[in-house]
């Protein structure tokens, strides 16, 4: 299997009046095609910078970002993004919101096909019958579902999720996790998920990358060896509990609250 997303020794610093502020310092991530990678780390460690680098909205000072065997030099339409804030457009119906990327990526696509594609996705995430509603008429969880549909409507190779479930209540969040598994069965995208929720990372991902505190480097990579799609109960199996403990410990090291030598167990 080839790596669809590959970051090699990526370093990046922001220029501030007080001098350069390094945020990424030696980041290595490799995500095989159609697998799911979760990135966790202490807050403010440059996770959002990472998403912008992969989307081609920014370029690293040093190191390389590869997508599907190409060095990333510009934004590319093979990327879909969803954020914590679903940012749906209030003047468009849910259906028209989902269609938006198609208007840009595939301007010649017949309207009928666009609508069919969006309706198919909305049905898949359980929003059948809400196509004509305005975003403000939907609950937070439903808006986030629509936002996910918009992120994958143009069949991107790479799906970048920047804490999309962070602002939802616990039950809604678990529902959306299930939806993510359902989507993965139907749609062939490779995912990079930024999250603060360790349970979320273990439940959804095939590998979890732990970043160190700022400036962020790859500190630890955990392979989640559980079959997908997973029932939510799998989180309470001993193997999953052990993985969670490992990750929590790694986060504490990243935060500087636990000595690093214990990391090797």
């Amino acid at each position, binding site marked *: 299997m080839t790596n669809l997303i590959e970051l090699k020794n990526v370093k990046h610093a922001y220029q501030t009046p007080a001098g350069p502020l390094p945020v990424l310092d030696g980041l290595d991530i490799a995500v095989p095609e159609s697998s799911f990678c979760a990135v966790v780390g202490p807050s403010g460690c440059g996770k959002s910078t990472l998403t912008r680098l992969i989307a081609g*909205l920014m370029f690293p000072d040093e190191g390389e970002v590869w997508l599907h065997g190409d060095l990333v030099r510009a934004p590319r339409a093979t990327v879909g993004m969803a954020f914590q804030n679903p940012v749906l457009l209030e003047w468009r119906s849910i259906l028209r919101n989902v269609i938006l990327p198609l208007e*840009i990526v595939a301007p010649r696509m017949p309207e009928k096909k666009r609508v069919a594609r969006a309706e198919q996705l909305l049905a898949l995430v359980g929003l059948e019958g809400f196509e004509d509603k305005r975003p403000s008429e939907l609950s937070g969880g439903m808006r986030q579902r629509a936002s996910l549909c918009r992120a994958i409507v143009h069949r991107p190779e790479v799906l970048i999720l920047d804490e999309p479930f962070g602002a939802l209540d616990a039950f809604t969040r678990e529902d959306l996790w299930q939806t993510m598994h359902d989507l993965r069965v139907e749609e062939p995208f490779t995912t990079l998920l930024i999250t603060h929720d360790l349970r979320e990372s273990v439940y959804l991902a095939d590998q979890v990358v732990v970043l160190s505190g700022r400036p962020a480097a790859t500190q630890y990579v955990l392979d989640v060896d559980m079959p997908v799609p997973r029932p939510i109960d799998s989180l309470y199996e001993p193997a999953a509990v052990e993985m969670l403990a490992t990750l929590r410990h790694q986060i504490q090291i990243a935060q500087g609250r636990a000595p690093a030598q214990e990391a090797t167990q």
Partner: protein
Amino acid sequence: MSGANWQKILSPVLGIVVVGVLWEVWVWYMQWPTYKMAAPSDIGPAFWRFKELFLQYGWQTLWRTVVGLLVAVAVGTFLGMIMGLSRLMRDALYPLLVGFNAVPKATVVPVVALVFVGQHDFNTILIAFMISFFPIAVSVAIGLSTLEPEYRDILRSLGASRFTIFWKIALPKTLPEFFGALKVAVTLAFIGTNLMEIVEPHGKGLGHLFESGRINSDYPLMFAVLIALALLGILLYYVVVVLERIFAGWAERNPT
């Protein structure tokens, strides 16, 4: 027609009638002469006596105001776009605009009347424009500069051009603020038109009618002009409200 619709028409009409009656009674009770305060019963005949002039001058004031507003919308939107999309231009233009806006337009009126002497239509439109473009420019600038960065990231990551982002997201998102500013601009533009019409001796328009009422000590006529201006103001305001419903009706949340 349903009961709710009747209520929509009846309540404002009733409001106007009640205020009119109170006004009439008040003037009668105080025994005020017309030069102190004209009563509605004086204003009606004043309208009738000058009905042709009211139509002719009212139209003049209206179209000058509308043209001034259209120019204000064009220039205001353009300035707002420049300031909203470029940090540099915002820093460069903002103090200038604020300073320009701070100058009381009543003081600019005689200057303009001298510079473009005799160009009545042009002068009037110019002042209407000058007094009303500022809120439009500011609202468009704020609407554009407060665009959530996520929108830009989503569209730019798809390879959308700046124009596409502006057309599909920034522009429609700014419309509610734009219409809010336009409602303010409508009343401001009327002030501008009338300032100029009052000052210019041969400029015509309702302002001129007002001034001739003053010169001839025809006080009911002056009050009648004020009422006519209020009517025109209401008319334009509701035109803007209808446009807002059509183009930015989505911003009105239904209380469900």
